[in-house]
């Protein structure tokens, strides 16, 4: 019993040392890293302001992954939330972008860009910004 206690204590101690040294690195390893853009480009038409979202940031079903951040215990944490948007058709606008009103998404929000078809995130999943 005593010997078992020693072995158990030693193993757990080793594990704790290992996790202390490499905990941060493991987080970086297991968390997907993404490229993010801040939505600070907009287009004014009359009194209305439209946020410009690159088409490369849209998922197959036309949604975007919005990144929310929160100050964690050890570092700034980033979470993704899928958001479906209603786009506005602007005939005169640039074809590389889609346009949404500021009611749909706030100016200055961060989204994942680019989104490839294999990219899929659970709601609230953590990501690391490259």
């Amino acid at each position, binding site marked *: 019993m*005593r010997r078992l*206690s*020693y072995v*158990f*204590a030693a193993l*757990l*101690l080793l594990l*704790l040392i290992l*996790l*202390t040294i490499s*905990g*941060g690195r*493991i*987080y970086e390893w*297991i968390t997907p890293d993404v490229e993010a853009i801040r939505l600070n480009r907009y287009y004014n038409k009359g009194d209305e302001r439209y946020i410009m979202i690159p088409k490369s940031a849209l998922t197959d079903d036309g949604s975007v992954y919005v990144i929310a951040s929160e100050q*964690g*215990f*050890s570092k700034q*944490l980033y979470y993704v939330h899928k958001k479906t948007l209603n786009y506005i058709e602007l005939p005169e606008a640039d074809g590389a972008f889609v346009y949404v009103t500021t009611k749909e998404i706030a100016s200055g929000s961060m989204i994942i860009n680019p989104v490839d078809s294999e990219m899929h995130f659970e709601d609230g999943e*953590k990501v690391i910004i490259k």
Partner: protein
Amino acid sequence: MKKRLLLLIILTILAAAYVFPVVLTIVNSLRYSGSAFTLRQYGEFFFTNHTAMLYFWNSALYAGAITAVSIIVSFPLGFLFAKVRFRGRDALFFVFVVVMLLPFQATLLPNYIQLRDMKLLNTPLALMLPMMFTPFAVFLYRQFIAAIPNELLEYATLETSSVIKLLRHVVMPQLKAPISALAVLIFCESWNMVEQAIIFASEAPDIMPLSVVLTRLPEDVVFAGATIYMYPVLVVFLLFRETLQKAMEKFRW
């Protein structure tokens, strides 16, 4: 027989009351956002909140250093009170016992002033020094050393005139049980320090022990943190359990 059964039931209820918070902490550490029996909370603790482990090692450093120094420093004092005759010895020992009985909060302000004057506030030493000189260790040593027969010490003085050799080779081997008991008790006390850290190191958040930081952890990992926090105390207890039991049996007021 009935009396015995009743006693057994009462003792079981009392034991359960002590064990319940520990079991609850461990069980809750295996839950995460409603899902049961998952190690996710530990994953979040070690990976997402990985810097919390630095505070764990702060605690380990403080508790280890305090335990080691207390055991070494209190030993000659205990011997002094037990075997060396000098004027005012009993009065001085009485003062020691009174200081031992004082609640920690009573000595907090004098300790703070002393540490401030020594310019040690907000340093690791501020958390360790006041706890390194514990009257309880001196008291426990004194009680055990007093039980060592004087004849044995007199015989040993024929072999050597060195007090250090006498203490090391004759007295120390007789004190394995109290040393183990002290190791467990002092380690647990210093591992659980909270007020000292909050008051003596209020402007140095990086040197805080885990006992203080535990409350600042995110809610969803706090049980995993608390379980990790319990581990060293459980290990120390498991390692010294037998000798601690012996010391308790031998102890005489």
